[in-house]
């Protein structure tokens, strides 16, 4: 048994084309066109589909790694312009391992002299990589230095333009090159909390005094 499609557009047109050869005159095609145009189930306007892919395969591009480091001297970078994407914090640096740990407030007094005040800034290189910059701040009562002063100034410039920061050993500070011609960075819609979770996951958050890094520092 034949099952006709339910779409009324596809019901056969009213007139039969007939099965006889239509050889009377040259108008056959024209007549058929006229006949079809009355109910054209294949009118182009009804057929074009939107979109290059109709499939939702649930593809996402999750952020897997967020390096915690100052900007590479060979890359231009921009700092996230939203003030909610920065956090005053204290970090502990293991210089030999080139590792930076985020230390929670409760642990600060338990390891005096080991942590440094920083502002954690989210920045992006031109190739789209997201990183966290632990920008050093001045410890209360201590003298500031020109490295840190120039780095902070560079970070302020990088809010609304692209900046490249290189060490100037002679001046003990950073030199910067800036560009306001490069189109602004596109920021992924990921909250700061999530970025920090990725950056300081894998044991890089010190939230207890028996953290392996502290035990190592204590010589245990």
């Amino acid at each position, binding site marked *: 048994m*034949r099952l006709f499609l339910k779409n009324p557009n596809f019901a*056969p047109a009213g007139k039969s084309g007939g099965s006889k050869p239509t050889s009377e005159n040259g108008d056959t095609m024209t007549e*058929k066109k006229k006949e079809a145009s009355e109910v054209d189930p294949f009118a182009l306007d009804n057929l074009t589909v939107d979109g*290059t892919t109709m499939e939702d395969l649930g*593809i996402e591009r999750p952020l897997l790694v967020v390096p915690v480091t100052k900007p590479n001297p060979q890359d231009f970078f921009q700092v996230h312009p939203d003030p909610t994407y920065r956090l005053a914090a204290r970090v502990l640096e293991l210089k030999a391992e080139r590792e930076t740990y985020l230390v929670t407030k409760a642990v600060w007094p338990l390891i005096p002299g080991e942590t440094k005040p920083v502002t954690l800034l989210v920045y992006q290189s031109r*190739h789209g990589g997201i990183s966290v910059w632990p920008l050093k701040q001045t410890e209360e009562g201590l003298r500031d230095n020109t490295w840190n002063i120039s780095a902070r100034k560079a970070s302020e410039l990088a809010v609304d333009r692209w900046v490249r920061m290189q060490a100037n050993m002679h001046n003990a500070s950073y030199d910067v090159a800036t560009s306001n011609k490069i*189109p602004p960075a596109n920021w992924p819609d990921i909250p700061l909390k999530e970025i920090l979770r990725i950056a300081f996951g894998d044991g890089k958050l010190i939230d207890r005094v028996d953290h392996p890094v502290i035990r190592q520092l204590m010589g245990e």
Partner: protein
Amino acid sequence: MRIPIQGPELPFREVWLIDFEFVAPAGERQRPVCLVAEELWTGRQLRLWEDDMAALTAAPFDTGPNSATVAYFASAEMGCFEALGWPHPMNIIDLFAEFRVVANGRKLPRGRGLLGAAAYYGVQSIEAEEKETMRELIMGGGPWTEDEREQILDYCASDVTLLRPLLIAMAPEFAATPTRLGHAVWRGRYMSAVAAMEDRGIPIDLPTLTMMRDRWDDIKGDMIANVDADFGVYDGLTFKAARFEEYLKQHKIWWPRLETGALALDDDTFKDQARANPILQPLRELRHALGEMRLNSLAVGPDGRNRTLLSPFRSKTGRNQPSNSKFVFGAATWVRGLIKPAEGMAVAYLDFSSQEHAIAGALSGDKQLWSAYQSGDPYLQFAKDAKLVPQSATKASHEMERDKCKAIVLGVSYGMSYHSMAHRAGIHVAEARELLQLHRETYHVFWSWAERNVDVALAGGTLTTAMGWQYRIGHAMEANPRSALNWPMQAGGAEILRLTCVALREAGIGLCAPVHDAVVIEAPLDRIDEDIARTTEIMQQSCRHVMRGKTCRVDADVIRFPDRFMDTKRGVKMWNAVMQSIGLPEYSTEKGAK
């Protein structure tokens, strides 16, 4: 008798499965030998020999709006309709086109032909060797004995018999929804347009072609002598790699090598190297011309028309892939000088301007990329958008910057790597990388869209055009992310061209051929301007269907008898060298052709 089909059914009162056998000498119109047609629901079969068909002015079965005609590679069947002067069926379902949709991107061990499709769907068929034997008998052109006639008709009927189970196997896919069935019918309409173009052909200056063929060895000798005077790399008619290596050493030109250590002498390498070292350009043109110019392969009939298979739906983007040696637009650029309208006629070449760029802007929804297209000079506009040049810059004031940006914009459109872009633009890789990065930053909406498409394609998902042409990377098939990135633009362009060809044929325009993103039409001299205007309108309307209501600019070149077609940038020099060699008048860019 009613024959049930599982799943959604074809909403046609009659469905005719058809196959012609025909003879088609190179460059000539098809000569139908026989037709077998069988109605799907009733099983009624018609068998007609060539003299039976010649007596009819229309097909001996219903071709109206309530019926469908089913064939495998329907342009061949419609070519027979053209030759017989029969009006084409209104609804054609081409199982070849539908098989290509289903299997595009997949490995097909038995190929894309009727037997390959049958194998794919598990349908029993005759052996390929048997098919080949019968084809040889038919292509012999007759006359055939009574027995041979019966054999040929039986063979033709066996293909029709194969169409029935194939249709039943494929219908649940192409008729799954009214929209998909509509797409199939439109692909069928395109096969009608292809048949009309293959039948009409492109007008060729046959006397000049004949003279060139007769004197080809002399022409080659003269051309080599002319160009090689500056290079000294030929020995008679033979290119000597050792001499060329010596030449490169003397001129301190670096040249890519094969793994074996030998110089890479393929045309793509020559093309790229000639861009970076313009001194080599005449040598590249010569080699290209000699390599491509297989004059005897150019399929031109005794009536002076270039006719060849356009090979629709052959590429994974759905574009046509006619033979480069048989199709006048596939040969070296200067050979197009052979295109010449007949007396009282004109030929027009209408192409979409920067079509891939426009499609990218329209489909991705990147407003800035679309504005760049609308500016009329997307290359310069990219330079402006990326702040490489001031807003007041013009093509004349910042030619160098524009050229570099052009290489990047085109490279993105064609899915090239930045290494290739650097090579083509003659700039350092680091500069190309930087410009590509700027392109990504400037047109980030486009890039997000494009990368999502790549993700879907590489994950085994399906990319689709507005009219349902699909691409899915099959199991164990090599995946190229740049090719997937580029697919929507190329496939969209192919779709626009198909809709254009269908509409032009149905509007009665004298459509000669599709050429990548262009069409060639012909008309009497007093009607050509009107037809160009109508064709432009149709081309732009086709864009709107595919490009979410947006459209492309169309450029038109018209060649009126007695002028000839000429690519005045890339072809005229070589054409004139050939004309000089055979003592015919050269093409003058100032006063037109002779």
